[in-house]
């Protein structure tokens, strides 16, 4: 029998498998995709230090290390249910049911769209899909593209598309409304972009990071935001233009946009059409927590972490005996954090399994410190308030699960 099943062969899952296997446990890793690495294999960017972060190489390194430790990795396999049976977990997969004492859910995140008229036309895709096609499948997504939605993920992938020689013509905002939320409000977008100002070689954004955190300056900045946008890696970012509709007969032919005021409200009579043969919608990411939910794990909505996240401790355990989580399911952060969390979860599982004696405490402690260190060193955050989100979860955990004899209520999904 296996000791541990890891669901998801991304950075968190592979790192978790490695740490567990290193501690003497027998580990199987399941992944839905045809090859391991998860979203790591889409990543390619230059760090501030000048070094390149090559996700394909990173995932290959993790994959090889796992194989060396005799981790059984099965790709192209889906998990459709997870249930507790006495002291064990039954993990129902497309290749049968696997029974184990320990489960690590490392399913990462999913993208959410911002639906707009015409978004079902061929040629419209999520920004993440453009990344996978470009960096994983090596397929050119189109000749001239428009990104709808300005966020960190969009900028990172814009850069990757450019590296692949794909022309992204413009970045515009979605139309303000219930479906777009803050992504349609220029001022809110500006606020979140200021945290990534060093990515944008524009004086306005760079100066912005210094004093535009003040509301008055920000409003003024929006009012005078240049109509033709500021350039991000050479691509105009148009915070005062909103995408109203994707147009085309049988496939994308362009995007109808209109000028907006500083609040994102459309100015009538300003409509124009930008030609394009592909459109990327950059909505955002949310923790993909389905399996933790069907397993019966309690959840908390924490905006800073990207949505509903399973209750978990800093050692990556959930309130359910034998169930652990790591990576973006616990909150939207970088692949490096996911690796560090995976390692923590792997040692945490080994500790619960009674492996490695006294040394495991030291390893676990070091792994937790490492997560904090990497978070501190991160150049950019998907959510600038990530620290506060992490703190909320750890306070919640302490309140609910660490004080003995404390009757507590928890929120379940469903």
């Amino acid at each position, binding site marked *: 029998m296996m000791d541990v099943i890891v669901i998801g062969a991304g950075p968190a899952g592979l790192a978790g498998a490695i740490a567990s296997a290193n501690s003497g446990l027998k580990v199987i890793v399941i992944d839905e995709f045809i090859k391991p690495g998860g979203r790591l294999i889409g990543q390619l960017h230059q760090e501030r230090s000048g070094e390149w972060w090559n996700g394909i190489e990173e995932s290959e390194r993790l994959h090889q290390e796992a194989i060396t430790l005799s981790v059984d990795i099965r790709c192209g396999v889906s998990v459709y249910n997870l249930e507790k049976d006495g002291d064990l977990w039954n993990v129902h997969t497309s290749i049968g049911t696997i029974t184990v004492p320990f489960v690590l859910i490392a399913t990462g995140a999913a993208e959410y*769209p911002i*639906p707009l008229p015409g978004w079902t036309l061929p040629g419209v895709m999520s920004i993440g899909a453009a990344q996978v096609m470009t960096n994983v499948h090596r397929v050119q997504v189109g000749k001239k593209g428009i990104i709808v939605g300005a966020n960190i993920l969009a900028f990172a992938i814009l850069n990757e598309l450019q590296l692949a020689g794909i022309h992204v013509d413009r970045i515009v905002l979605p139309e303000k409304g219930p479906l777009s939320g803050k992504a349609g409000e220029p001022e809110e977008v500006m606020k979140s972009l200021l945290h990534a100002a060093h990515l944008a070689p524009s004086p306005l954004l760079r100066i912005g990071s210094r004093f535009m955190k003040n509301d008055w300056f920000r409003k003024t900045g929006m009012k005078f935001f240049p109509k033709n946008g500021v350039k991000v890696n050479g691509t105009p970012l148009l915070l005062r233009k909103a995408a109203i509709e994707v147009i085309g007969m049988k496939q994308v032919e362009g995007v109808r946009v209109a000028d907006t005021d500083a609040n994102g409200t459309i100015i009538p009579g300003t409509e124009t059409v930008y030609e394009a043969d592909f459109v990327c919608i950059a909505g955002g990411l949310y923790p993909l927590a389905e399996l933790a939910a*069907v397993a019966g794990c309690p959840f908390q*909505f924490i905006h800073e972490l990207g949505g509903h996240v399973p209750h978990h401790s800093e050692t990556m355990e959930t309130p359910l005996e034998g169930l652990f989580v790591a990576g973006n399911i616990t909150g939207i952060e970088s692949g490096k954090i996911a690796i560090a969390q995976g390692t923590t979860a792997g040692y945490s599982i080994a500790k619960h399994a009674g492996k490695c004696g006294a040394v495991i405490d030291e390893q676990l402690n070091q792994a937790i410190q490492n997560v904090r260190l990497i978070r501190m060193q991160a150049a950019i955050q998907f959510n600038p308030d990530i620290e506060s989100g992490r703190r909320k979860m750890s306070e919640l955990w302490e309140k609910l699960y660490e004080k003995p004899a404390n009757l507590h209520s928890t929120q379940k999904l469903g």
Partner: protein
Amino acid sequence: MNSNEAIVVCRCEEVTYGQLRTTAEEHQCTAREIKLRTRAGMGFCGGRTCRIPLDRIIEDVLPNVSQGDIPLKYQPPIRPVSFGTVGEKND
């Protein structure tokens, strides 16, 4: 009809923004109820694509409801599987 009304929000079940909005307004309902009434989120992808837009519609229509108060239920199987697989009759 306003073109926004015709936006397909749930692509699997082809449910439009207009239908969802009308349903939410008429019944002042939860995410679960809107799902049962319109089938939005009940298609092949299991609601992974339209979950957040659905929550946002509810949040917008219902006063004093925020995304944090909207737990949309997950049910197994969370991936499309054949009856044979669920019945454990694998060849």
